[in-house]
């Protein structure tokens, strides 16, 4: 899990990661800003996937970075900094989602459940990240979180159940409905695929 982010920012090139960390721990605003600039894009992409719109993503990012800076003294350089930041941000997002949603709603979907045909083509093949993110954002919060945790982050249903304090069967059901909803959305975005019988 985690991400690889290559920076071309000359400021970051000068400040090695250790120096960056050291500066942040000392409370140096320049180092804090450099760390933010370095990681804001990948972390914001994650926030976008867990939120309903850009405004909510910015709230997630803001709270997440505040938590990152407050937890930074606990970072032990046993793994990559990026992975640690990613994990802290994810925890922060989940905490905010839990706070907002209280109970992650299990919403009823279309009365005629979509059945996944085994022969169907991958509906997401060829779509860009912005489009897929937009589709994920249209999912109800409960579906969105489970879908992200399972599909993108690679958590198991058991881990998701523990993280979200829901049952494993709820996690599976949310994922099933999320997949169905996403395929429907893909049909809206790409009707030509649906007409061609691929979806």
């Amino acid at each position, binding site marked *: 899990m985690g991400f690889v982010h290559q920076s071309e920012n000359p400021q970051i090139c000068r400040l090695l990661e250790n120096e960056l960390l050291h500066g942040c721990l000392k409370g140096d605003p320049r180092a804090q*800003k450099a760390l933010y600039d370095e990681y804001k894009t990948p972390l914001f992409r994650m926030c976008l996937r867990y939120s309903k719109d850009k405004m909510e993503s910015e709230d997630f990012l803001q709270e997440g970075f505040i938590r990152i800076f407050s937890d930074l003294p606990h970072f032990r350089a046993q793994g990559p900094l990026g992975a640690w930041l990613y994990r802290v941000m994810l925890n922060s997002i989940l905490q905010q989602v839990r706070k907002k949603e209280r109970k992650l709603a299990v919403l009823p979907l279309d009365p005629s459940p979509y059945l996944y045909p085994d022969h169907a083509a991958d509906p997401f093949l060829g779509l860009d990240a912005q489009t897929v993110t937009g589709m994920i954002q249209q999912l109800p919060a409960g579906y969105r979180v489970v879908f992200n945790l399972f599909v993108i982050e690679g958590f198991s249903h058991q881990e998701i159940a523990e993280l979200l304090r829901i049952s494993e069967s709820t996690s599976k059901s949310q994922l099933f409905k999320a997949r169905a909803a996403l395929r429907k959305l893909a049909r809206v975005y790409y009707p030509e695929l649906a007409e061609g019988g691929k979806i």
Partner: protein
Amino acid sequence: MEPRSPHLKEDHTLRTLFADLADSPASDWDTPSEKVWVNVASELAENRPFLQALRWRYIAPFLLLLALTRSCHPVVRDSAVPGEFVPFIPAETTTTAQVYPSAPGSNKPAIAVRADQVLPSKVLQETTLVKELSITFIDKLDYLSSTALLPLHSKIVPTIQPANLSPIISIKQPLKPYWSIGASGALRFPQVLKSGASISPKQSWSIGLEAGYGKADGIRFTTGLEWSVQQWTSVAPVALTYREDQSYTDERGRLVRNYQQALSSGFGTANLDMLLANTRQNDGSDIQVGETMSFRVRTTTTLNYLSLPAGLEKSWKAGPLDISLRLGAVAHANISDRLEIDRVESLRARIQAVRMDLRPGTRETARFYFDAYAGLGISHRFSEKHSLFLRGEYRHNLSPVSRGFYIAAPAIQLGYTRRL
């Protein structure tokens, strides 16, 4: 290797899509706005490392307290070591009760209590300070009433009997400092001293535990832990421009649209999401696109604090009562907060607020702030160890509780103290 199951295939596509995402300078869909960093930086500036954040003005009250505490101990200058001060810490304190058949300067019999304090000194080896605690004249030498013995603590003269009366009774016992514990509750009536916004503080309260370290001369150092709840309301005007794009008709036939606006409150600036409905009555006063809709939004900020008071108390005995004067400072740490909308008043009858949500914006309320306090109290000793007190107290912000204003709060405090 390509996964075989369709679900796995889909998952693989998506995971790869997000993992291998390159920067997309042409589009800003994945770029957060500048205000995110502005808010993060503002939050970080408030929460600098503890020692860095403690500026002189915050430390000053505690240094003052420390100085006051030291000044309560007379300092003996040791001439043998220039510049070195030896704190006055009595090595031994003995109390003598002395009965005079005929007190000096008076023909009346008298009983006098005095304290002899021996303190160490490098030069003199020891120095004795004598302190007359009290002298009580009695009517008859052969009869010591309980009134006559009142100035004497029962521990000092525990077994004095008229039959054993001799011209001089000398009892030696160290005067030990003592510890005390207690609990108290306070009702506070805060007032805003400087305000840029229409803030109205509500009556607040606090409960706390107290620990004290007292000396025989009536000086007591007190500290403790307090939990307090503060609330204040604020009213802010909100002006929105009426629009009909992205609006829809709800089940009641109203034209509904979502608006977003920054809202100033006692807590700071919050982001307000308002779902507004145009009731579209056919009374000829329909609102036009582009017209301004004005609202008054009243919010309540609730803040819970954990506080650490530290102060000095000087008390004087008056029969079974003690009168005390307290001075000190309190450090407050915000442990939780809540901002709620109480009421939204639309200045256009046809526009109704259907739903409102607040999202965090820029916090202006301090996470840490400091108060100075002064109090005058009276306590009643029920027994040697137990007493109840009633105290009037006045607290004043040393550092602002919020960026916009300072608060001062008179209070009534009721509590219990147990001497250990």
